[in-house]
């Protein structure tokens, strides 16, 4: 999917077949920045005179992915969110479900003209974060305001919060069992989280990789949310905790500067109360929320250890596991004697 010598021809045939008119690929280049999937940008001219840019998002070759997720599930989710017009996001246009046409299972989406929020805040002085912070919170609140019915059966719907949260906590133990060696951090954190569950919130759409590199800022300053491959129905505070963890490792952090103001804005935009969204729940979900991504990275490490995976992305992201351990422990407050 990243070979610019082969792909223009394959993509032109694929698009022509799906649109019923001839497509010509005028430019094709791999995109950097995506960690889990291959990405490329294509410029397309249609027989009817239109031209546009599209993004291809496909699976790496077998044994080269740092995490395994399902393109069919992602396609179903993106399609459902798009139909419901639930939130601003690039429209998912086409899907090669088998990889027969584009060389790998691949989703083709609209290209967003603009830059990521991460690139905007990278250019800011710390005193200039304010507007971006509120914009980030507002976009997070919009994700959490999506009606879970909008996604239909695209992703699993847990029965209730309590069962869901216990299951999420148990994923620490499952990750430990599935790994190539014992990992006491996981078992400790699972015990701590079980003993310190917060008050419940309604189950909502959780992006699961909510961070500024996955928010595109358009020319008018509005946000489009991308990269929904880990999205699930869960506790919305997972995204707050995940963002806190992520931004601590890959800043600048728009939350840790003033977490009280961040959470106040989030409560204002979602209508959630201070009994459920506060510094204590931030700590709890900072420990809990990273498990989805963490478990995927750990599975990649296990696959490499067992000789089933390779690639710089797997070895490079081993460090993210250490970041995860630090954040797990940071959120699990020690008891006092």
């Amino acid at each position: 999917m990243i070979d610019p010598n082969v792909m223009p021809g394959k993509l032109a045939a694929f698009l022509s077949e799906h649109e019923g008119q001839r497509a010509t690929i005028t430019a094709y280049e791999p995109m950097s920045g995506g960690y889990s999937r291959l990405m490329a940008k294509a410029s397309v001219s249609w027989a009817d005179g239109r031209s546009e840019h599209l993004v291809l998002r496909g699976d790496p070759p077998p044994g080269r992915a740092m995490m395994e997720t399902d393109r069919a599930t992602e396609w179903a989710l993106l399609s459902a969110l798009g139909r419901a017009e639930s939130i601003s996001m690039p429209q998912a246009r086409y899907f090669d479900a088998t990889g027969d046409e584009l060389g790998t299972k691949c989703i083709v989406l609209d290209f967003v003209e603009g830059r990521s929020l991460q690139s905007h805040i990278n250019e800011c002085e710390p005193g200039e974060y304010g507007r971006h912070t509120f914009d980030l919170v507002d976009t997070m609140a919009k994700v959490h305001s999506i009606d879970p019915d909008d996604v239909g059966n695209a992703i699993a719907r847990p029965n209730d919060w309590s069962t869901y949260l216990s299951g999420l906590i148990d994923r620490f133990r499952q990750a430990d069992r599935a790994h190539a060696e014992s990992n006491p951090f996981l078992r400790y954190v699972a015990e701590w989280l079980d003993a310190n569950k917060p008050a419940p919130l309604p189950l909502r759409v959780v992006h699961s990789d909510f961070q500024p590199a996955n928010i595109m800022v358009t020319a008018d300053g509005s946000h489009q949310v991308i990269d929904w491959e880990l999205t699930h129905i869960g506790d919305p505070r997972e995204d707050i905790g995940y963002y806190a963890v992520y931004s601590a490792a890959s800043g600048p952090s728009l939350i840790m500067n003033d977490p009280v103001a961040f959470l106040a804005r989030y409560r204002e935009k979602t209508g959630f109360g201070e009994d459920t969204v506060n510094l204590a729940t931030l700590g709890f979900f900072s420990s809990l929320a990273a498990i989805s991504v963490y478990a995927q990275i750990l599975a990649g490490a296990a696959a490499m250890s067992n000789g089933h995976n390779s690639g710089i992305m797997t070895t490079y992201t081993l460090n993210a596991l250490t970041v995860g351990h630090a954040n797990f422990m940071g959120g699990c407050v020690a008891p006092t004697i």
Partner: protein
Amino acid sequence: MLSKPTTPQIILDCRRELLETIDPVVSDPTVKIAIQMLENVLRNCAERSAHEIAWMREESDSMVAFARDVKSTVGSSPEIDVAIASYEKGDNVTLHLDAVSDSYSRAGECLSVALERAFATGHTELHLRGREILALRLAHEDAIKGDWAFVGRG
């Protein structure tokens, strides 16, 4: 065998070659990012190769001692008995890396079940001691990690 230059020295020299010779002539942005990642992994490997056997042994001793202390302080559990027996049955002497790594994993299981027992019994002192062992493990991981952030994102 040749022990000098040491493994970390060799790895760090490969890293220098990567940064000074290869990186400047590369223009493809995706390869540039791969080089930044390789640079980081080579630093990780240099630090890890310098200490990993000593660190795993040091931690293993602490983890197994802790499990035995939990057993004697609050009473054992079937899981603790199994974990300690498994540890003792294995090879905890050989210094070849695979053997040390396997021994370390068995010791890690001893710590895990001991921490679960400490939680179940609500024994705060044992809980805090267990956290100290995790803190040592994290300190070693942090030393290997060094400076790190997601490269190429944004």
